[in-house]
């Protein structure tokens, strides 16, 4: 290598790299680990990323088996191993079946019947060994019938026997080590496992058997990369990779088992020129952490619906995103009128994203749990890949300009209302403003011409109460009580939404004496307002509004980036600075606005302080799912259970 590449080659210890890589993916890639359940509705059950990953057992099944106990980032030990591993399966398999390739051996195994080769308990007992609870179908002696049989065995049967023999043996040993060291998290990796449902199944079965269901075998989506990632991290050590956060880039990464031999042949053909598996990760300049206000961070799942499990929903959303593709492509082209190859790139984007959708249709588990969020994020990644970082940039600007013109008038008419009327108007304002979302196809037609008219019209069109989810009365009662110390507001769209809906609401909070932290996207997504844009907007508003101006000046109105570049919101991956601010300011109210952040994600999220989730459902399928209709309103005000409102006698719904 030194000679061929004319580069210095630093040898790094294999085990160290493996563990470093394993720690890295477990901490940084959502839905990295999964449980494999062959006969369940969704074969792959992805685990939520837990920052607390230690201790765990890593069983690496290569030619041989290494069993490593990992106690912390720097403390790990190879506590044992076995010489009966992938090499044994391959070697013995080749000798017995004359099959040369590992993949072929597995294919043979998947078709075989091992009972003709193995001696089962029922072959010895005539049934089960009841006294000990050993069922008749258990293997008593692998290859136990091979000595006395008078006929030849088929390759498939022998391969299957061999597979069970080896998987069961490895599983048993892993369980014995796990038991000795009191470990309940056992991850499996190595070429024996990689992308092979057959071996994942047998190992899962084995672990389940030997621990009587107490421990589940866990696999890693990117286990083939552990060593390389570890080596990379070692080399990058001076740069301290831990100071960054990382995300999986869905555009550049091929999905789980994209090159598995069991894969749909069409898929393999489509993969085209690149017969390799790829992982692309984005390094984020800033660290991402949990929102401190999550009631139970370890069980927090952002997504409301899991499309890997819900086949009907999956079918709908994949179809929906396919249908919307035309519009997205047009928008992308239109956003770069001065660049001649924009049309070409947009077409490439279309091909790529469509291919992703098709992959996901075949293999919903390709990138972990499939959710509306992941579909949206994948689209963003693909747009970025073909140089469309912000297709809505000009539209956002235009909308902002128009909305700003109307701002003072809107605020003035609000100030003229009675207190109660004003509160309601403010809420309706946020909701109506939220209807202005270019991301939802149903609305874009209404808005092309006159935003002012559009806004008034939208307010009028807003669903009559009672809303689909309606806790407005409780919210109003709460407002009669003492002001909140600090509100954290996750905002949504640019234009009418932020300027005419959100800002007046914020203004009201400031007037009451509540501090406000506006959390907006770090990077662009659809027409959502970004932190950079919000800074500019707020200054322009401050120029015409003394309340906002005072808020900024007195440091009671803060603008902080959320860490997200998605239309959805993952409260477990927020910018570290935001988390700090939330803590310092003793935030006691969280407001989440919009379908992406309050319905597709976080609909069921439980916070440890009061929260307000506001959105208008702009998708008729989803509305129907939730028991409403198109443009139904969700106004969810929640108070954590066991925390009665301090000075408020009002009933607190949970």
């Amino acid at each position, binding site marked *: 290598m030194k000679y061929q590449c004319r580069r210095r080659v630093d040898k790094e*210890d294999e*085990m160290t790299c493996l563990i470093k890589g394993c720690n890295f993916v477990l901490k940084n890639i959502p839905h990295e680990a999964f449980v494999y359940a062959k006969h369940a509705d969704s074969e792959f059950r992805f685990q939520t990323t837990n920052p607390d990953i230690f201790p765990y057992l890593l069983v690496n099944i*290569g*030619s*041989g088996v290494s069993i490593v106990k990992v106690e912390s980032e720097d403390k790990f030990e*190879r506590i*044992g191993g*076995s*010489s*009966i*591993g*992938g*090499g*044994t399966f*391959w*070697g*013995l398999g*080749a*000798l*017995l079946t004359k099959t*040369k390739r590992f993949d072929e051996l597995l294919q043979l195994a998947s078709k075989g019947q091992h009972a003709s*080769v*193995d*001696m089962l*308990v029922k*072959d*010895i*007992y*005539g*049934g089960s*060994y009841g*006294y*000990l609870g050993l069922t008749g179908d*258990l*293997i*008593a*002696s*692998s*290859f*136990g*019938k*091979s*000595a*006395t049989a008078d006929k030849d*065995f088929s390759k498939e049967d*022998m391969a299957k026997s061999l597979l069970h*023999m080896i998987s*069961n*043996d490895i599983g*048993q*040993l892993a369980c*014995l*080590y796990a*038991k*000795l060291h009191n470990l309940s998290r056992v991850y499996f990796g190595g070429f024996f496992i990689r992308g092979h449902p057959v071996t994942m199944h047998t190992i899962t079965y084995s672990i389940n058997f*030997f621990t009587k269901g107490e421990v589940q075998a866990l696999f890693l989506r990117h286990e083939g990369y552990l060593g390389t990632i570890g080596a990379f991290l070692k080399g990058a050590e001076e740069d301290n990779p831990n100071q960054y956060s990382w995300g999986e880039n869905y555009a550049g990464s091929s999905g789980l088992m994209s090159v598995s031999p069991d894969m749909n042949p069409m898929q393999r053909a489509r993969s085209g020129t690149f017969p390799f598996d790829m992982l692309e990760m984005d390094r984020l300049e800033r660290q991402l952490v949990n929102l401190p206000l999550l009631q139970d961070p370890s069980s927090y799942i952002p997504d409301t619906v899991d499309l890997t499990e819900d086949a009907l929903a999956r079918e709908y959303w994949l179809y929906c995103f396919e249908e919307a593709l035309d519009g997205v492509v047009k928008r992308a082209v239109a956003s770069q009128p001065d660049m001649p190859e924009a049309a070409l790139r947009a077409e490439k984007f279309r091909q790529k994203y469509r291919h992703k959708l098709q992959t996901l249709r075949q293999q919903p588990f390709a990138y972990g749990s499939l959710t509306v969020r992941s579909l949206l994020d994948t689209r963003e990644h693909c747009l970025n890949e073909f140089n469309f970082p912000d297709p809505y940039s000009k539209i956002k600007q235009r909308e902002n300009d128009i909305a700003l013109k109307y701002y003072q008038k809107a605020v003035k008419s609000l100030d003229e209302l009675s207190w109660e009327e004003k509160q309601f108007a403010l809420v309706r304002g946020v909701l109506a403003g939220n209807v202005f979302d270019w991301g939802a196809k149903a609305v874009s037609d209404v808005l092309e011409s006159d935003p002012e008219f559009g806004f008034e019209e939208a307010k009028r069109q807003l669903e009559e109460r009672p809303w689909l989810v309606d806790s407005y009365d409780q919210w109003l009662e709460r407002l009669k009580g003492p002001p909140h110390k600090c509100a954290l507001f996750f905002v949504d769209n640019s234009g009418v939404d932020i300027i005419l809906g959100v800002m007046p609401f914020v203004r009201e909070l400031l007037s009451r004496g509540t501090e406000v932290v506006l959390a907006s996207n770090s990077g662009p997504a659809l027409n959502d307002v970004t932190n950079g844009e919000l800074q500019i907007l707020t200054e322009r508003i401050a120029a015409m509004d003394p309340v906002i101006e005072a808020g900024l000046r007195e440091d009671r109105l803060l603008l902080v980036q959320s860490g997200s570049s998605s239309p959805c919101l993952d409260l477990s991956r927020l910018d570290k600075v935001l988390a700090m601010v939330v803590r310092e300011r003793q935030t006691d109210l969280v407001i989440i606005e919009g379908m992406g952040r309050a319905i597709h994600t976080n609909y069921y999220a439980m916070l440890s302080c009061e929260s307000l989730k506001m959105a208008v459902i702009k998708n008729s399928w989803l509305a129907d799912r939730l028991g409403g209709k198109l443009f139904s309103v969700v106004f969810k005000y929640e108070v954590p259970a066991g925390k009665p409102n301090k000075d408020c006698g009002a009933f607190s719904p949970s």
Partner: protein
Amino acid sequence: DNIGLARKPPFPWFGMDIGGTLVKLVYFEPKDITAEEEQEEVENLKSIRRYLTSNTAYGKTGIRDVHLELQDLTLCGRKGNLHFIRFPTHDLPAFLQMGRDKHFSSLHTTLCATGGGAYKFESDFRMMADLELHKLDELDCLIRGVLYLDSVMSSGPSECYYFENPADPDHCVQKPCTLENPYPLLLVNIGSGVSILAVYSENNYKRVTGTSLGGGTFLGLCCLLTGCSTFEEALEMASQGESTRVDKLVRDIYGGDYERFGLPGWAVASSFGNMMSKDKRESVSKEDLARATLVTITNNIGSITRMCALNENIETVLFVGNFLRVNTLSMKLLAYAMDYWSKGQLKALFLRHEGYFGAVGALLELLHPS
């Protein structure tokens, strides 16, 4: 043996253990028959006794292990010799036929049998030989048999033994020992499959686990890989072969020891690992393959045993079962593995009567019902 002698069961006294591969039969030949008794003795009982004791081979596959015979044994107040006979389970029908021919059923004795076959072939016994089996649990019998044989004061060699210097072929010797105060004990029974028991006292034991990679696997794989057909053939081949040609060793991967984790270069990294390569597949001999199979199965049993010993906190391990019959290679490997990987903490013990304990336990149940 202190249970009050109620009625002695009538002769013949048999204990049977019908396993997956072999049937083990234990027969007590009374040597203190009085003239009176002789007179009254039924003809077919005499003929059975004569047939069993004057032959050392029965049919094509039955064998009496003369070297294991226990002479001048006192059982249930009678003095005699205990004989140890085995034949393949495959040939059980022939045995049943013989039982029928010799009108065994007219002797009205209870036939105590253990092992899976006692359940599987229960109806065959009834139908073909008109015999009613008294079925017993194989692990109960195993433990009972082990404890009994070790305690018996016999003039012969010690039942229990171990290996001194197992790593050094020139100085490796068998040394006798007893199972005095043996508890807690890990009992590893290597038959077709393997059962691992933790024994805390005569009546207190549990089956910790088992593995399907046992004697049956060794024999089965050997037959497939080398074309041999008996256990003895397989062992003979193994004794001539070199497993390091078949296995991939640590030094084959690391060029030496993997010091970081204390793995010596000679340790096997991947059993049959060299067989991934076509060239190597074509260059190894049948003997090498047989040896590798033996080593792989044996070391695996050793590994699992060691982990069980650690989990159960037991330091004494007793290996029994017919996999170890005439298989000094495996015994030494086990002795060495236990010692080396546990850094001397674990001690491996063996018993001369290897696979017969179940049958002995069954016989004991006949004589002293629990």
